[in-house]
């Protein structure tokens, strides 16, 4: 039996593990990235590799040590580097003497047949069409639910009275979702999660609202962004991320099949500033910032891995966009040297700045659109 493993990104490992198991593989669940992961990553990756590359490489080393012999990851068709990750990682790992098979799942738009072949390699039991349908339905629901409880945690955290309540509730929800056995369980879990969040004691006020945009990996993987959402939440800020896993999956797998690149709304909004699709999520970062502005947010934080090309382009454009829309703007470049304390100080300063701006404008009286959405 194949021992399959894959990169770690947020909570995506839960549905992924289940999927691969149902397809008849032995799964080696990647560990949550830690200092150790990074140290492997920085040791074996080139110096200017982007941060996600290093984390993923480190994870591969860890799972190969744990006995995995097949690595699955998603490809991409550029023009940014992510699509070339696997080609280089495979070479580096081979140089280190590991033996394994690398399976890259390219988005279906260009190499549909390759994709099917690669998926076939991963299916190692006999399944009927009904099985396929129920397996994918289960995984999809799991994904959607995971996103939902995360969103709920973002909403509750700034309002909580006892610090840490929402984080605890969130962890519990994730556990429940991961433990689900059958599709019907989800209904119960969904209700229970909502109750859990309702039980958190809340204050009643209109928190500052900050939108987070940036490169997908550092956006989704809390270890790589130093748990910035939690940090901001505890500073009493409502955060919203521009991208969630289920949406990402749709835009990468489904939309690509029909050759519709990227999120269309974001694309339209970015058009006046950013005319060309340039890979990664540079244009989405700009477009989503405009959308956040229209919805009455107070500020934007851009997360970018150090040396990330599309985000560097976005970074040159965003200050102007934010100025035109009256948003505060903070950009954070992440790599193995970014410290948590330094980040907290910068966030605190940013939040103070936004607060002062709000007071000056006297907008506290007008409830913004998001506030209405949240109520």
């Amino acid at each position, binding site marked *: 039996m194949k021992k399959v493993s894959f990169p770690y990104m947020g909570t995506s490992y839960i549905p992924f593990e289940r999927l691969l198991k149902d397809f008849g593989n032995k799964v080696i669940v990647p560990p949550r990235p830690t200092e150790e992961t990074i140290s492997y990553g920085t040791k074996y990756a*080139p*110096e*200017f*590799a*982007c941060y996600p590359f290093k984390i993923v490489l480190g994870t591969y080393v860890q799972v190969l040590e744990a006995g995995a012999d097949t690595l699955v990851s998603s*490809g991409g*068709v*550029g*023009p*940014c*580097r992510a*699509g*070339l990750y696997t*080609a*280089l990682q*495979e*070479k*580096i790992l081979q*140089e280190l003497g590991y033996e394994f098979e690398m399976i890259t799942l390219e988005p279906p738009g260009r190499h549909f047949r390759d994709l099917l072949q690669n998926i076939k390699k991963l299916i190692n039991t006999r399944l009927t069409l009904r099985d396929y349908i129920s397996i994918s339905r289960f995984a999809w629901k799991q994904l959607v639910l995971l996103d939902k409880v995360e969103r709920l945690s973002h909403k509750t955290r700034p309002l909580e009275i006892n610090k840490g309540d929402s984080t605890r509730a969130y962890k519990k929800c994730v556990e429940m979702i991961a433990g689900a056995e059958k599709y019907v369980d989800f209904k119960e879990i969904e209700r229970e999660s909502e109750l859990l969040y309702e039980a958190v004691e809340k204050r009643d006020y209109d928190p500052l609202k900050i939108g987070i945009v940036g490169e997908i990996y550092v956006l989704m993987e809390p270890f790589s962004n130093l748990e910035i959402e939690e940090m901001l939440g505890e500073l009493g800020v409502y955060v919203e991320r521009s991208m969630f896993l289920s949406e990402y999956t749709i835009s990468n797998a489904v939309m690509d099949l029909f050759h519709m690149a990227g999120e269309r709304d974001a694309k339209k909004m970015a058009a006046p*500033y*950013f*005319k*060309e*699709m*340039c*890979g*990664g999520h*540079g244009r989405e970062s700009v477009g989503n910032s405009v959308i956040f502005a229209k919805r009455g947010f107070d500020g934007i934080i851009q997360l970018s891995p*150090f*040396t*990330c*090309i*599309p985000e*560097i*382009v976005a*970074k*040159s*454009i965003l*200050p*102007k966009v934010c100025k035109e829309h009256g948003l505060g703007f903070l950009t954070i*470049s992440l790599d193995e040297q970014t410290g948590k304390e330094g980040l907290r100080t910068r966030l605190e300063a940013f939040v103070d700045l936004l607060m002062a701006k709000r007071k000056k404008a006297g907008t506290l009286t007008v409830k913004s659109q998001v506030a209405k959405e949240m109520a």
Partner: protein
Amino acid sequence: MNTNAGIIKIPVEMYYMIAVRGEIEVKIGIPRALAYYAYYPFLTTFFEKLGLEVVVSDETTKEIMDMGIEDTITDACVPIKLFHGHVRNLMDRVDYVLVPRLVSINREATFCPKFLGLPDMLSCSISKFKNMLEVRIDLKKSRFELFMICMRLARKFKKGFFLAYNAYLRALLSFKNYTHQFLQGGIPPLGILGQKKNNPIHLAVVGYPYMLYDPYLSLDLIKKLISMGVYVVTPEMLCERDKKKQASKLKKTLFWTFSNEVIRSAYCLFENRTVDGIIHVTAFGCGPDFIVDKLMEIDAKRYKMPYLNITLDEHTGQEGLNTRLEAFVDMLKIKKAKKEAALA
């Protein structure tokens, strides 16, 4: 009837049009950075033959570099900073500054995301920059796309079809001539017309044209090597067909045209062994290059080809570079002598 009134009524634009058609030439500025180094014979010839006055920005100096650094965010790579600097150098003394948005020149690859977003970056980073002439170049669309782009430009400057067609042909010719000079062993952008083939050491210097051929940025690396008695080979000096052959070496074609050029040249040289070593020149913080460099490094080891990486940024010092180059060349000389002794 009052004839005078009729004359006064000619709109201002008309005067402008007459002026454009007549003596006053439009001045078009071309920044000496990025794609300029790869395609300048085409650009300059085309606009000159079209009857415009072409102004190329000055050669890179510390001042230009500093202006570029001032306008860009710190983690942009040096070539991008330099482009900003060159735009500043030009923008006040010409009517238009040409800023290409290079999307593709063939079907297989595109360009670094920073090339794709270049005009957007510029219009946000340099607030006073109003006379940008943005030209989108996406040649994968059709075989005649380059021609169409040229015609569109000609129309913009109100030039006739035949004049434009002639300019286009001349430009192509001049570009062909330029590539030919490379194949003869010359390096035209550096003013090197030919090199002595019987130099003891042959070295390949691979990297993007705007890194290699900007003497300020590359700290005159190529000329330095030549003065050390080295025959220098650059990617442009290898024949297109040989490079194409190497395409299958990679599991997946890289996404960027210039990077493919570099890596294929390297594979060519690994196989033919026409050089004694390879130097890869790259910019600090360059995105695509971390992949290109690592792939080449791993494979150089497999092919037992001496390999040196040189990373340049705005702070790289001449001294350090010289010592590294000298050490590398000396090492190769000793190696060669040993090999010859063993053979004798």
